[in-house]
């Protein structure tokens, strides 16, 4: 059983499977660090808007930031409740950047016993490309130093 786990989840179907698996493999009273990565593509989302004035662009950026913050808060609250219900300790880590880089950065900074991730979304499954499939990269697989558990993608049945 593991004492300190880094769990990456943004509340998608695959990530929820990873959450369930993480709570199963934890030792009693273990700590689960919940990693949420805000993908960097958001930074370039207004890239080629040239007609609006600065005020409109600022309003959009503030709005987008608050909406993303709201979504993250909802995910954290949901998982917090789920984890504490299993008498485990929850903490959240929010990073901005490339998902695989962010995971590696966190993994290097703390001594985790296990990393838990959901599997890549099967092709044709709806959802934002930037949110789902960019954590399980070759680069991450080659650089990782901690044991890794990948939860199978849940079947529809």
């Amino acid at each position: 059983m593991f004492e300190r786990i880094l769990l990456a989840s943004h509340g998608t179907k695959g990530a929820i499977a990873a959450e369930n698996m993480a709570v199963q493999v934890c030792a009693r009273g273990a700590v689960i660090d919940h990693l949420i990565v805000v993908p960097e593509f958001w930074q370039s989302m207004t890239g080629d808007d040239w007609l609006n004035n600065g005020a409109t662009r600022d309003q959009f950026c503030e709005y987008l930031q608050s909406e993303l913050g709201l979504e993250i808060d909802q995910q954290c609250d949901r998982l917090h409740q789920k984890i504490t219900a299993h008498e485990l300790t929850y903490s959240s880590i929010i990073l901005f950047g490339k998902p695989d880089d962010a995971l590696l950065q966190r993994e290097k900074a703390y001594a985790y016993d296990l990393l838990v991730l959901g599997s890549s979304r099967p092709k044709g499954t709806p959802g934002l490309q930037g949110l789902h499939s960019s954590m399980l990269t070759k680069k991450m697989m080659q650089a990782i130093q901690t044991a890794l558990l990948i939860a199978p993608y849940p079947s529809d049945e």
Partner: protein
Amino acid sequence: MIYTQRNPALLIIGLLMLAIWFSTDTGLLAPLLEYLASGKEYKYLNELTSLPLYFGLVAVFTGLWHWLGTHKEGHLDYYFSTIAGGMLILFITMLVRWFIAPQIEVIGVDFGEIGDTGKYIHELLGLNYVVLGIVAGIIIANVFKIPEWAKNGVRLSRLGLKTGVILLGALYSAAELKNLGGLSIFMIGFFVLGSVGIVLWIGARRNISNSMGGVLSAGMGVCGVSATVAVAPVVQAKPVEIAYTIGTILLWGVGCMFLFPIIGHLLNMSYVQFGAWAGTGILNSAQVAGAAMAFQPDGIETLMVAEIFNITRVLILPVIVLWLAVWYVKREGTTTTQVNVGRIVITKFPVFVLGFMLMFALSTTGIFAPASHYQGKYFGNTAEQGFKQEHLLKPEQIQILQLEARVIERTDHIAALERLIENGKIMSVEDDNTVRGMINAQILSDQANRILTAAHKAVRHTAQKIEAFRQWITWLFAFGLVGLGMQITVSSMKQAGGEPAIIGGIVGFIKAALSLIVVMLLVSEAV
């Protein structure tokens, strides 16, 4: 925060610009330029002997200060920090315009004309300095990443486009603005309202959320990413909906920017027709300017038409934002959200359009060119007025015109042609207009038409101030578009998907196809 970065990059860019100027000035580049000109006169020689010198000096001095100077926090620091990115964009534009695009042209010409189109592959594909510049920008942003020292400048490149639009205002005649304005209000009104309506209608049938429908309809209907940015907070769109919409629009916009000029050339569309089509059919307003310049890289007539359509779109934007705000509040049945009409109209009003109007108003006073000039051009068939003796018709050209004159039926055409043959040049503005009419009507053979076109060009001269405006406008748009290219990321486009991709595909295709049909049927070749 101090924005200016201690980095030698700007200094290096400046030195490279000066090296280009020096190599041209001393003739070191002459063999290369001769090769790129493919037997003709290298058309950018004037630019090569001036622009890299002026901008190179600015970059060297500013670069030294960036690298070795002491920087303090403040507005001035931010604005100075943008020079590095601005110079990077300018340098890329220079390389593409002066060397890369001519090289592609050489390859295209070597390849030979494509079928019976009478065009080379680079002309058909629109591979000119504008498109190549945007592609270069996209490649740099996505493969090499924008360096930190250049980011602020790249972000400010949109000012190039806005300034270009403002300067464009000086080039329209009142009649052109009236005719183009009327046409654009009709086309944009019909297609914008139509697209917004269709998206909302399809959205309701496919059970997408009101916020998704609202943001998507604005993006698809009005001006793409700009409309999405303006509407998203008003209809309370979710981040995932925003990402889907912007991804879809960018993908469509970039695709259309490459596809529209190819179709335009294949259909032999006039500048007015293509400008009207691009201005209506391309979803994203940034790519409208790109497509217009890709269609006509060595002139701004298409851009002038397309930008009127862009301006009409952006003027409609506050109305659409208002409409969607009211629509959203009604659909959601929310009483907590108030629609502040005045605030929406004021904050969404594009201030740069006032600059465009001001320039137009100034041009009507004759400050830039006398009232007798049309589009900054004037008639002159004497040496004092700028006519060159070598442009007089040659005996073999006169012979061709004499032979073909027999097929002409209209008496005014016959009279104008007789005077041209007799004098070797066009003798009056009226004759010039008649000759232009004959060229457009394609009464004579291609060979004779080429002779008439040359005779027409020989007596049409551009006022110096207007020529300078045209040059500046071309550079400002090229600069702005390369900068915008550097802000288009593949990761943003990859987000295209879900319902917006389906609805966007349907509406985008209908809009492009229908507007093409309307333009071909209703828009004449000239305004």
